């Protein structure tokens, strides 16, 4: 057993020294491999993180959102609609919601102001991480917001939101109903929209139809529609990323094929020498296996680490054109790190294994020939 380990250690030692002998060639191989893994892993990290954000958004989404339209645009909804909708069969509850966008010129950022379910505490707010970051204001600090009349409403931050999703909370400010109305000048009998909870999800569509019939000036939005919108949005983005992924995979196939298609004369000669001086075919294969594994595993890990930094630390600058839709909404959009071990394993099996196999096969073909023939064919 010890001698087997010693054999592998000796072969690995030779492998490393062999890799150093062809520094330039192997460095180029590793750079190409790393770039391929980096691109693929960046796409995986990015799409997964964005999808996770979407799930977080939808978790808090009501069954039906009722908005009022005026001249084809979203308008404030009267409070007396609540009573009529609540009385409809199958409706559990109807809540009036207050939310709106506040443009902060100093930071050139849009904040989303929301009144929490409990109505909030007057003069005090809870800020999202993005707000806190942009305004450089934390717990206990003062954040003045300008009302529609141009007067300052001074608010103190009582906490910063901790959330799994920055998409949900980054630009959020939880504000009291009174302050909200003061800033935007919204009358007491008006809400931004209504959130409707239904008893049986299968009846959602029927209830939406009833609402539309009772109030023709409204637009009921179902959770499934929100889901579809997000889905098409992500699909569009994923489609673009898929093109990048396809390019990376194609590059990898060409790269692996090049390795599998044969050995250089120098490599064949070396295998001949090793066999002539007493290496078995299995020793030569072990040597080539270690060689392939050292290159592919190091590159794989480098690619994964670089992709992590690219997506979660540098916020995917290479995908900026694809990300621009978000950037308009969120001046600074940060993805919450999330790695799916299953997808990393898939990437591992799709890159490291084929490459290692591609390294072994031609070596095996050379190594099964009599060493005498390999030596003579110089």
């Amino acid at each position, binding site marked *: 057993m*010890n*001698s*087997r380990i*010693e*054999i592998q*250690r*000796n*072969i690995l*030692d*030779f492998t490393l*020294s*062999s890799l150093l*002998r*062809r520094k330039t060639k192997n460095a180029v191989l590793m750079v190409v491999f790393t770039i391929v893994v980096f691109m693929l892993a960046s796409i995986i990290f990015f799409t997964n993180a964005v999808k996770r954000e979407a799930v977080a958004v939808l978790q808090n989404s009501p069954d039906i959102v009722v908005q009022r339209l005026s001249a084809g645009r979203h308008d404030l909804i009267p409070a007396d609609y609540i009573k009529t909708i609540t009385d409809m069969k199958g409706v559990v509850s109807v809540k009036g919601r207050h939310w709106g966008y506040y443009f902060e010129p100093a930071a050139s950022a849009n904040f989303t102001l929301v009144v929490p379910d409990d109505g909030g505490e007057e003069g005090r707010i809870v800020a999202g991480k993005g707000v806190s970051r942009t305004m450089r204001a934390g717990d206990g600090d003062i954040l003045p917001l300008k009302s529609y009349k141009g007067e300052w409403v001074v608010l103190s931050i009582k906490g910063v939101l901790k959330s799994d999703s920055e998409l949900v909370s980054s630009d959020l400010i939880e504000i009291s109903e009174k302050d909200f109305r003061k800033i935007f000048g919204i009358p007491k009998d008006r809400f931004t929209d209504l959130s409707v909870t239904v008893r049986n999800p299968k009846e959602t569509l029927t209830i939406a139809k009833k609402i539309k019939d009772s109030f023709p000036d409204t637009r009921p939005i179902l959770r499934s529609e929100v889901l579809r919108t997000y889905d098409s949005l992500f699909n569009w983005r994923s489609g673009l990323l898929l093109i990048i992924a396809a390019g990376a995979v194609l590059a990898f196939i060409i790269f692996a094929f090049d390795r599998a298609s044969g050995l250089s004369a*120098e490599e064949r000669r*070396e295998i*001949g*020498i*090793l*066999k*002539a*001086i*007493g*290496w*078995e*075919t299995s*020793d030569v294969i072990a040597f080539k296996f270690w060689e392939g594994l050292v290159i592919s595993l190091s590159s794989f890990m480098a690619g994964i680490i670089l992709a992590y930094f690219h997506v979660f630390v540098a916020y995917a600058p290479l995908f900026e054109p694809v990300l621009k839709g978000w950037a308009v909404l969120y001046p600074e959009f940060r993805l919450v790190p999330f790695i799916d071990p299953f997808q990393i394993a898939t990437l591992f099996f799709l890159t490291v294994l084929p490459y290692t196999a591609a390294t072994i096969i031609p070596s095996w073909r050379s190594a099964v020939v*009599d*060493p*005498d*023939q390999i*030596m003579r064919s*110089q």
Partner: protein
Amino acid sequence: MISVVDVRKVFNAGKANEYIALDGVQLDIEKGRITVIKGPSGSGKTTLLSVIGCMARPSSGRIRLSGVSVEGIPDDEGYVETTSLPERFLTQIRRKTFGFIFQQYNLVAGMTVIENVMLPAYPTGEAYSAVRNRAEDLLKIFGLYSRLDAKVQWLSGGESQRVSIVRALINNPSGIIADEPTAHLDTKLSSEFMNIIESLNREGRTIIIASHDPVVCESSVIHRVVEMRDGKVIR
């Protein structure tokens, strides 16, 4: 003792470019002696060394090695017949019984002298430190200790030759097979090489050399000259 019994080696058999390298070779090589196989280019010297050294299999005939133990093979009859052995046993013989010295030295370029010397010992499972100590001792004996960490492509012809001899000795084989070892050496270095061969023989090793160099064939240290022509032993 090495017995070569009616050995034929045909390359590209059945094709238009078929070539008979060995044609019914019959030869006994005594243990502990220096035997030189002499003959012009294409006479079959190198092929004969290859089949004796288990680097190639003959097309027909037998090679028997006596006084050789191969792990996993019973030697009830006092000899091992190599021609029918599976690859892994042949490797074992190449590794433990014979040390090879090649015409082109066949050192692995880009690696140091010590790494090249240690290469045949890597798959034996022997501890790295033990192999390294032995390699250093041998390099001292052959006056190469100062060149220990030099890349082999920086060595002179004589130095490369000595490195290949040290590499052949690293697993302490009982036989040395040398193919045209003096082809790239001048007369002085060739004579030095023959002195080394003599000292290795004095240690009890069987030496087989293929050469047509007069410095080798006419050297006083050799015990026997076998002459070949057209794939046959003629004397």
